[in-house]
């Protein structure tokens, strides 16, 4: 919808303080996007693909500009190779070059690490961070890979079944004071009974299969001491502080996260 590929059934979209329906061309000139798969003209070279999309975006596609852009995504040496010879990671990087070639203010990346190997994922992550920090670009990333989002996002929106569940600053959402701690014991129900008589009762999260607390990470030693004092046989204590855990605490079904890095 942000790229006008799908029409909204109701409502309107404002980007850069302008209505998308009435200022479509103006707004799209400032947006670059990679939509899920980096689909490009396979029978053309990387340079030709980039040249085509630069021209459509209204940019004067000089050789210097195109080669510089290919260099940014690490494809300068393969500029004149046909896209059909590229790996998924290379296509993804070329897709990002296409998204960046007209120097947009907003970059939308839909599942940018889909189908990439660990090195490819790391490269894309590095590139996104560079664009955000060095060039001050606003990057909207839509992804199911929560661990990746956690590494790059400043601001996070969690969407469940098409509805926004939470939106906020990544640092705030992943507040250490709200760390989830999972305790593995020999007798979970017995341990719960004992803990419900203590001040830790308010920290226990509702669950029948495990024993989990939401607490400040700094208080883990105090919890450990309390468990020993109560004679609970502890097998392990695991602090969980990832976006994935936070997400799972909000929902157990849909998992789709949108993040904004700037």
């Amino acid at each position, binding site marked *: 919808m942000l*790229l*006008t*590929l*799908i*029409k909204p059934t109701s409502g309107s979209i404002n980007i850069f303080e302008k209505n998308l329906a009435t200022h*479509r*061309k*103006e707004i*799209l*000139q400032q*947006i670059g*996007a990679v*939509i899920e*798969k980096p*689909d*490009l*003209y*396979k*029978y*053309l070279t990387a340079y*030709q693909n980039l040249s*085509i*999309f630069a*021209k*459509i*975006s*209204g940019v004067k596609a000089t050789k210097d500009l195109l080669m510089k852009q290919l260099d940014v995504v690490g494809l300068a040496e393969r500029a004149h190779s046909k896209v059909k010879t590229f790996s998924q990671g290379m296509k993804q990087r070329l897709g990002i070059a*296409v998204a960046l070639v007209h120097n947009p203010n907003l970059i939308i990346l839909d599942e940018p690490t889909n189908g990439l190997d660990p090195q490819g994922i790391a490269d894309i992550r590095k590139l996104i961070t560079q664009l955000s920090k060095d060039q001050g670009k606003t990057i909207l990333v839509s992804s199911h890979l929560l661990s990746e989002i956690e590494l790059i996002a400043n601001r996070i929106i969690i969407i469940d079944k098409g509805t926004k569940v939470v939106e906020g600053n990544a640092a705030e959402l992943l507040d250490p004071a709200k760390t989830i701690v999972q305790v593995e014991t020999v007798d979970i129900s017995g341990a719960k009974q004992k803990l419900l008589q203590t001040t830790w009762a308010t920290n226990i999260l509702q669950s029948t299969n495990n024993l989990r607390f939401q607490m400040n990470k700094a208080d883990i030693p105090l919890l450990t001491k309390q468990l020993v004092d109560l004679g609970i046989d502890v097998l392990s204590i695991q602090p969980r502080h990832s976006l994935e855990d936070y997400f799972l605490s909000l929902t157990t079904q849909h998992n789709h996260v949108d993040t904004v890095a700037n």
Partner: protein
Amino acid sequence: MWTLLQIELFKIFKKPRTYLAFAIIAAFIFLIQIGLLANGKDWMKFILGGLDETMDMEYGKLMNGYAVCFFVLNLLLVHVPILVALVAGDLVSGEASMGTLRLLAAKPVSRSQIILAKFFASAVYVFALLLWIAVISLVISIAVFGVNDLVVAKQTGVQLIEADDVLWRYFYAFGFAFIAMMVVAAIALLLSVLSENSIGPIVATVGIIIVCTLVSEMEIPIYQKYIKPYLFTTYMLGWKGFFYINSNQDGETIKGSIQYLPAILKSVAALLAYIIALVSASIFIFRKKDILS
């Protein structure tokens, strides 16, 4: 718009399948030319055999470049729509199946411009294809077989067009063929907008042409009266009209005349109306369409 058109042309002429059409046409015409070079005189005698006693025919002279070109066009122009559909049917659906349509539609150009650019690009392709046919079938045939009067068979008999009255008729005939082929391109484009795979619109375009041609040709009164006037195929072979010439009271052909000019003009108007309607429909649908692939 100009930039978009340049890009569309660049994409069309970078695809190997584009050149397939040129290669097929060249091979086909060369085969005819070689055959007629070997047995042209006999072939002409066979074709006009029934008139042997009534007309003083010089078969060798009649087998000239103009006649070869006329023969080629008669055989070939029926099949060129397939080659046009091969490229035009892929213009939008090919991008959809490749996934580039989303990228294209997310750029700061209007969807109407995208369709118009693709249509005009297909026009350039059709023009190039017909120019190729003209060069090979007319220019090369003239160079190999020479120039002389052109004999044209009609339902009422044969007529002779003087050599210096022929060439301009070919220019107009190719111009007419261009408009006719653009109807095919417009149909393929519309089907391409409706589809998300390349093969469907190409096959469907060819299918529509075959069905419409068969219905146009059927001598069934109800079809002739109610359906034929509205079929584009009824008007597509109007190029032949440029080679039907008026005769005076003595039966002598009148140089520079066209016997059925109003009918030709009507055909041109009908074909142009088809093109405008089909391209407008393509733009309308494409503007409304959610692009998911």
